């Protein structure tokens, strides 16, 4: 029968490069944006003093009230007194490249109390000012004078008032108080918040585990307690569908005669036999993800299937189906997907809130930039919520009893004692291997057969001769591990 030429699917192939790809795009964009808006730091030059010979002078009257508000020629202006450690500071630009020449600019600053002599005045005059000075002219007034002020000049006056003269608003005092905390303090907060969240959630998980206690198996049982697909057993035990559930399903399908695995010198291949109606929905989906029309599929083609799309809808459905089946069997109070999603939503909401506050803190609380660490801590906490929240036990009494039975079987699989050489144990290794993979004890399970003769299962084809148990494991585990992990990672994020 002629092989139908398959239509080549578009390859995106950025899984392992996802980090680098996203990083590059964002780093480039971010710095381009920063450059566009402000990151030009001036190696500032001097400006010439220039005038048209028309001699003028100007006087500005400023007054600071005891509540910190500032008035210019009787009109309230937006200037603010900022609290510092040893003084309260007024820093005000009074002349900023106004475009005309002044022979003299005089600023009189009236203070709310007779503290002019205790106030440190400064005048910063640049870009074409011949001379400048600042001095107290009486007990409550400071005079700032600049001579020959050029068109491009900028003049700023500074008054460092003694503490206690200005009664600053509560908000300003709060902001100042926060600004006095060091960066290390805020960094500590950023570490403590996720730590507290972690401890709280772990305690919650432990509490739930205590109230939903799994009956302790009295003794190991030597056979699976019921005929349950390994993937469903995995969900029952870990409340999660991981690469192990996928790998175990592949071996289970091999055992049941639906597929075979070909081990080659370089690489591997999967082959399919006839699929019957005995297959479960999620098993059909998994097979349809791996195979196309041809009977066999090589490792290159399998890898191609991983990268057909950025995310695999089929593998997402596989996961959803396994969870659904376990829930329909009455093992969970609610579908674990729903619980995972709930914690994901909580985490996303928390993260978004922290992110907004993070940006707002930079924009509106520039005096306390380290306070942003607080929000970074909250962002990390949100990730902790997503990760730990999904571990919250939600098994029903039926689920707990079933899990207890399966844990009894796990004890048998992971028992370090070698099995006696009997005819009945002959096929047990491959028969129970999917469950051993689910229980993370495939190495211990193989060790139980050390010293026994091993016959290669008919679903594992290899050119190598006299393959022992260890060789078989060394050949099989990397193949199914590779396929399982790659199929697990391409699921939509909510199913990972």
């Amino acid at each position, binding site marked *: 029968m002629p092989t139908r030429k398959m239509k080549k699917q578009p390859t995106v192939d950025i899984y392992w490069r*996802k*980090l680098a790809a*996203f*990083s590059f795009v*964002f*780093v480039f964009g*971010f*710095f381009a944006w*920063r*450059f566009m808006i402000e*990151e*030009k*730091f*001036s*190696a*500032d*030059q*001097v*400006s010439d003093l220039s005038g048209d010979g028309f001699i003028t002078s100007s006087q500005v009257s400023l007054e600071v009230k005891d509540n910190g508000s500032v008035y210019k020629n009787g009109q309230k202006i937006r200037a603010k007194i900022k609290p510092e450690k040893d003084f309260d500071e007024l*820093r005000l*630009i009074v002349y*900023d490249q106004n475009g005309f020449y002044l022979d003299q600019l005089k600023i009189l600053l009236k203070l709310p109390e007779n503290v002019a002599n205790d106030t440190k005045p*400064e005048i*910063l*005059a*640049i*870009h074409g000012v011949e001379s400048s000075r600042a001095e107290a002219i009486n007990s409550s007034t400071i005079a700032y004078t600049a001579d020959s002020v050029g068109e491009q000049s*900028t*003049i*700023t006056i*500074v008054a460092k008032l003694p503490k206690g003269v200005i009664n600053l608003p509560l908000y300003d005092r709060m902001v100042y108080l926060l600004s006095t905390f060091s*960066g290390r303090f805020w960094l500590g907060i950023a570490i403590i918040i996720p730590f507290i969240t972690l401890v709280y959630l772990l305690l919650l998980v432990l509490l739930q585990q205590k109230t939903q206690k799994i009956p302790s198996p009295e003794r190991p049982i030597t056979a699976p307690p019921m005929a349950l697909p390994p993937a469903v057993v995995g969900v029952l035990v870990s409340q999660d569908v991981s690469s192990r559930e996928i790998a175990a399903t592949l071996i289970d399908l091999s055992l049941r005669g639906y597929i075979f695995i070909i081990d080659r010198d370089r690489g591997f291949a999967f082959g399919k036999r006839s*699929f019957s109606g005995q297959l479960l*929905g999620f098993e*059909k*989906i998994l097979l*349809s993800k791996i195979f196309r029309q041809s009977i066999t599929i090589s490792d290159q083609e399998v890898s191609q299937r991983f990268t057909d799309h*950025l*995310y695999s*809808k089929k593998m*997402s*459905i596989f996961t*959803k*189906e396994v969870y659904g089946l376990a829930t329909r069997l009455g093992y969970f109070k609610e579908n674990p997907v729903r619980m995972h999603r709930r914690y994901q939503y909580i985490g996303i909401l928390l*993260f978004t809130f922290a*992110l907004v506050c*993070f940006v707002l803190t*930079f924009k509106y609380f520039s005096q306390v*930039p*380290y306070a*942003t660490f607080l929000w*970074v801590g909250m*962002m990390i906490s949100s990730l902790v919520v997503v990760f730990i929240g999904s571990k919250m036990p939600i098994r029903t009494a039926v689920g707990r009893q079933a899990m207890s039975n399966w844990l009894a079987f796990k004890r048998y699989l992971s028992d370090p004692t070698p099995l006696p050489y009997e005819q009945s144990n002959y096929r047990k290794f491959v028969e129970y291997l999917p469950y051993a993979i689910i229980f993370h004890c495939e190495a211990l399970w193989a060790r139980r057969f050390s010293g026994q003769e091993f016959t290669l299962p008919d679903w594992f084809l290899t050119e190598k001769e006299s393959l022992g148990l260890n060789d078989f494991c060394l050949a099989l585990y990397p193949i199914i591990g590779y396929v399982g992990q790659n199929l697990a990672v391409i*699921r*939509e*994020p*909510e199913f990972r």
Partner: protein
Amino acid sequence: MFNREGVIGKIVYGGGFVFDFARWLVIFAVLLMISHYFIVTIYIVDGLSMDPTFESGEVGVLNKAIYHFSEPERGDVVVVKYPGDPDRKRYVKRVIGMPGEKIEVKNNLVYINDKVLLEGYLPKEIITIKEGSWQLDGDDYFLMGDNRLNSNDSRYFGPVEKRFIIGKTVWILAPRFFSVVTPTYIL
């Protein structure tokens, strides 16, 4: 092979990409903002006052974390908030005078505590103008541009308190590429 419509359910294909991309985007945005504000960033030199050490348009790397662990040293090329307009203006200058020192500019030279400061990084023909004398307080630094004839610096706006210093320039990335080394002075 299987009832596709039945099992697809509520899965919205493509949502994963948006979620994953947004997640990476946000994580990088946050990390870069933290780096930009607290650790290291880049900037463009705008103007001639550091000429010939830095030329206008060159891209510099600014270490913002360094002064949390150490004090500015004489010769460091720093970025400061201009004290006359700290919210908007940033200047690139070299630290010349340290806290407590007396700085004097006279006879086209700089004197620190009455001893002449020899500055090997300046072109031989350059002279330092704008004579004056400044006594620095315990938290003040005296900053000057290397282009002594054409630099708006502490000679004009006075010493700068440490709180206005943002960070130290450690590299020039482009178009030239070199490490900015703090010179050694003999006083």
